């Protein structure tokens, strides 16, 4: 974990509200794991005051990629950065996805809603490299929410898409597509990242189907490295419910440990 104040922004691609940044940061790239994240300074002033947490979307050699959606002032400022500029980032942070060797030769579901796709590219790549068979479920309201579907496929990943309005792929929620597919397939594990209602629904499905898995959770973060206790979510662990830090104990948690709906508000 280190601060890189001169991480060079190499490339900016964008589709409407969605942005894909390629950033050169050799040291952070060397330490990174799928599911980890960065804290990014978005402003030189006090508005907004805090850094923004953004997942590692992919890592190749000395380069990091991040994929984000403009959600408010901070991500809007971030989206205005231009190639050649330096970014002030630190990371990699948090506990990423577990990559069990038992997934070898098994099918694994990776479910992402909208910007929740962010951490799954890196994850799916690592899974494949480890001999597992990842399938990415990529859901959005409409086709415009799925800007990365072509690339994911082009990089050799199996991708199933869904849109609420049916403009692309399966018509309906991505959770319905997962349920649909579970009728035929028996994955060994499910990873997911996305809005809380999507995750809660997936948690139900996994419980019913006795499917193990992990979710990457979001939370408003003060520091990103365990110093503030601001990012906690209620987690059931060792028979006890307690507030654990999303930035340090997470952002990835085993599905069955997450307590709903305590964690919903906000």
């Amino acid at each position, binding site marked *: 974990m280190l601060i890189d104040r001169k991480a060079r922004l190499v490339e900016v691609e964008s589709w409407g509200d969605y942005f894909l940044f390629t950033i050169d940061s050799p040291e952070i790239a060397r330490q990174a794991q799928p599911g980890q994240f960065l804290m990014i300074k978005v402003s030189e002033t006090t508005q907004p005051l805090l850094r923004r947490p953004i997942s590692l979307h992919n890592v190749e050699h000395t380069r990091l990629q991040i994929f984000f959606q403009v959600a408010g002032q901070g991500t809007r400022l971030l989206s205005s950065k231009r190639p050649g500029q330096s970014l002030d980032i630190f990371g990699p942070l948090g506990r990423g996805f577990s990559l069990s060797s038992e997934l070898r030769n098994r099918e694994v579901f990776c479910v992402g809603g909208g910007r929740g796709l962010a951490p799954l590219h890196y994850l799916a790549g690592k899974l494949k490299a480890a001999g597992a068979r990842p399938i990415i479920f990529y859901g959005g309201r409409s086709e415009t929410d799925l800007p990365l579907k072509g690339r994911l496929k082009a990089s050799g990943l199996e991708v199933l898409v869904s849109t609420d309005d049916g403009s692309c792929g399966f018509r309906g929620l991505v959770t319905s597509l997962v349920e649909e597919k579970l009728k035929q397939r028996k994955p060994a594990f499910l990873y997911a990242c996305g809005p809380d209602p999507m995750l809660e629904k997936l948690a139900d499905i996994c419980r019913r189907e006795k499917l193990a898995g992990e979710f990457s959770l979001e939370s408003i973060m003060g520091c990103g490295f365990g*110093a503030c206790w601001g990012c906690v979510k209620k987690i059931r662990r060792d028979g006890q419910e307690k507030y654990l830090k999303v930035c340090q104990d997470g952002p990835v948690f085993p599905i069955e440990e997450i307590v709903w709906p305590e964690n919903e508000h906000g």
Partner: protein
Amino acid sequence: MVDLSVDLGFLKLKNPVLGASGTFGYGLEFKPFYDLELLGGFVVKGLYLKPREGNRPPRLVETPAGLINSIGLQGIGVEAFCRDILPELSGLKTAIIVNVCGEEEDEYARVAEYLSRHQGIAALELNISCPNVREGGRCPAQSPEATYRTVKKVKQAVSLPLITKLSPNVTDITAVALAAEEAGTEAISLINTLLAMAIDPETRQPKLGNVMGGLSGPAIKPIALRMVFQVARAVKVPLIGLGGIFSAEDVLEFMMAGASAVQVGTANFVDPDACLNIIRGLETWAENHGLQNLSQVTGSLKV
């Protein structure tokens, strides 16, 4: 070479910059970013006798130039701290200060007493000013009498130096400071956070799970500075100023107003190496201004 050290009487610091309680974890969180021995010292997160769950999330909300938190002093308790953390800290050549909390007055003395049986603690900071643990944000530091009683009890229980941390949510900060001084505190730190609130107009709900929280950051610096100025004219014990310090210039303002040392809080979140950068900035400033001892700056305001 500028001498950055400051002498609080009961404690000599290599420089006036301390990490502030609740924003500096148990100290260890900052080890990946720099050598903790470069600091004047740091104040670890508030401790009760027992582990504490803290408040319902969301616990943070950003406001213009500020941050409202309602952590509610989640923590591992004094026992686990002394067992698991303190041994890792006590070897460090920097001042380790422990922030002491209590549900009621007696608990402060008991936490202090427990800590006093361990090595490596330079001083205790009495957190009688957290707005996030009692109904309506109330705290002992809102009353000179409760302040006097709490400080006195802890004083009688331990011989460790005491720093009493004051709340800005008061009519007359000098009255509380005088009460703490009379009860025998070795130093006063100020300010803790200002009781605050934010609402999401879409959901019509408070943005914090605990409804109200404490405001910190640059937004509150002008209020903190005013209080340090007022208290410096009222008491004789040394002051540790804090509230919105983000730069070396901010530190100089607090020192000129009368602080002997300072704490850096929210800035640590924005830049994990904020304290280090501030110390370097102070060194440069002192050099550029031909100062030999930074401590000369304390109380040098011309009014």
